[in-house]
């Protein structure tokens, strides 16, 4: 068992501003839905209903919800393989997401992609990319298209701390900044790239400093605090929307579960995970809402029951889905078939 010092907890800013009950209910409801949905997905994985790779974002729900709350329907989202939370927060029907995890034809990507490749172009959700940092150049291109058409929208691009080591991160930040493109780069820094801790893969562990080399304004925020994250994303998104060029927002968070379902977690201690769980974004938000008299415990319990019910309905939808016929195997490789092979 590797015993290394736990990474420093981010400094928690004081509660940033007030929140109304409707927003609180919406955000907490979404965070609970992501949590319950993914807990169920883990169970279904053990039951063999979901196969392949399954990456859970449990512990990171505040970032998904806060980030997407700042976007409009016209904005684009580019995501990673750890994207159930992004998809649900974007409003993809939970049934379509669960059916995709099953690989059923009623899944968001007709079952072709599975957990890592959830797409919904109608919601401008440009997917689940399982090549680390592979989404960043696409986000630059989507923003370039919006600039050229022109179309008033920004592109939000999620990626992990691990992606920062790839050339594509650096090339994309530079390009977006050089061309002043409306890209909101959202780094979900959960302090690990698979089993490699941030301080073992980055010479400079303050990711928010990296924007400076490309003249991309950057800020780091406590990603366990949904309100702090939401106000940081709102400010960043406004700046990008104003035409000032890209922005890099580093959200410091933590995954409570293994990297994927295959991971024996040899690289971090239980104590470290427990320490972070004390800053569970759902528990923190809940306590703040209850403490501030914004939502009563009973209302919160009702939200949780609803999250479980929606999850159960999503499972039922997936169970009821059909398998795509084998005869359709070659469908959608091209827009049209040509007579020659």
């Amino acid at each position: 068992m590797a015993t290394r010092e736990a990474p420093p907890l981010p400094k928690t800013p004081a509660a940033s501003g007030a929140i109304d009950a409707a927003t609180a209910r919406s955000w907490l409801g979404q965070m609970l839905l992501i949590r319950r949905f993914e807990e169920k997905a883990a169970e279904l994985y053990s039951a063999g209903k979901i196969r392949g790779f399954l990456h859970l974002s449990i512990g990171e729900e505040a970032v998904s919800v806060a980030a997407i709350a700042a976007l409009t329907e016209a904005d684009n989202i580019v995501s990673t393989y750890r994207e159930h939370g992004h998809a649900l927060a974007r409003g993809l029907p939970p049934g379509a997401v669960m059916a995709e995890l099953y690989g059923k034809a009623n899944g968001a990507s007709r079952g072709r992609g599975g957990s890592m490749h959830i797409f919904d172009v109608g919601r401008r959700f440009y997917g689940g990319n399982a090549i680390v940092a592979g989404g960043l150049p696409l986000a630059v291109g989507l923003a370039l298209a919006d600039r050229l058409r022109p179309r008033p929208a920004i592109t939000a691009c999620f990626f992990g701390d691990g992606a920062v080591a790839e050339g594509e991160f650096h090339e994309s930040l530079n390009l977006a900044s050089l061309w002043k493109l409306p890209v909101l780069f959202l780094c979900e820094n959960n302090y690990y790239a698979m089993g490699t801790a941030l301080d073992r893969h980055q010479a400079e562990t303050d990711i928010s400093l990296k924007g400076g080399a490309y003249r991309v304004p950057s800020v780091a925020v406590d990603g366990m605090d949904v309100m702090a994250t939401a106000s940081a994303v709102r400010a960043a998104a406004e700046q990008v929307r104003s035409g000032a060029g890209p922005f890099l927002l580093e959200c410091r968070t933590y995954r409570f579960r293994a990297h994927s379902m295959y991971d024996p977690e040899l690289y971090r201690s239980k104590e470290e995970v427990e320490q972070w769980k004390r800053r569970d974004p759902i528990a923190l938000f809940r306590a703040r809402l209850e403490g501030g008299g914004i939502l009563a415990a009973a209302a919160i319990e009702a939200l949780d029951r609803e999250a479980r019910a929606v999850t159960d309905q999503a499972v039922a939808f997936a169970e009821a889905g059909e398998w795509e016929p084998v005869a359709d195997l070659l469908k959608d490789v091209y827009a049209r078939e040509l007579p020659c092979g």
Partner: protein
Amino acid sequence: MRMTYREALRTALTEALSADPRVFLMGEDVGRYGGAYAASKGLLEQFGPDRVRDTPLSESAFVGAGIGAALGGMRPIVEVMTVNFSLLALDQVVNSAATLRHMSGGQLSVPLVVRMATGGGRQVAAQHSHSLEGWYAHVPGIRVVAPATAHDARWMLPAALREPDPVFIFEHAMLYPEEGEVGEEPGPLPLFAAAIRRPGRDVTVIAHGGSVGKALAAAEQLATEGIEAEVLDLRSLRPLDDATILESVRRCHRAVVVDEGWRSGSLSAEIASRISEGAFFELDAPVARVCSAEVPIPYPKHLEDTALPQPDGICAAVRGVLQPAQAAGAKA
């Protein structure tokens, strides 16, 4: 001794690190995580972080650094997690590793070993499942091998480390948990020779890596029908062991090439061409191929299974070449 393919690799890595101080292993999560496929589990503890180096997610940089370290007198073993990710490093491979000896007029040598997982079958969809070793086999200046057995997983690595040129070892992801007999000694075959895994007389079934087991399963089935298929494991994809391939085809007069790569522009196309160049007049039927369907590998099991070569499809292709007129749809 019986051990898994994974244990065989670990044994080989352990021996290599023990035997030669110039050898070191680097790649994503090879150390603390123990390797994405657990091939290097325990090696960090045994050899320390200088010799078992976790790298950032920087395929181009760490494959390139492997090339540089080889130029500088070391014997690096670079692990790339999966062939799909190796595409980020393809520039370093094709433009540097493969060219430096030649471009420098023979002054430089790149004794580098790169290992990576390849292939489908685990329902990990279209960015983790492809078999691109045939692309690598296209490139002069590098060598490409594909151990299909635990014994080869054990003994190809030390042989690769003795090569003065870059050697790419493709490990089919489905093979890691497979158990097999591992001999105490290397050989009997040299690194770049093909092996007859099952002698036969009616047809040569040519496969490599994860397809060898499928070809053997097909041969078992065909034997119950009175068809004796010879199964040839390529082992080396560059160079190809033409002599062994052609000798077998000349004896059996029919050939089926199994390749998990896509059919168009594939290694199977190269092999079929070499057979027609070298044994055309010995053939009793056109060479048949069993390849992956021309689709990015889909996630659901039934579609993935259909997309990849399977024993049933190999059997059907063999039956086809035994009835050439029907198979070719030609003259009655």
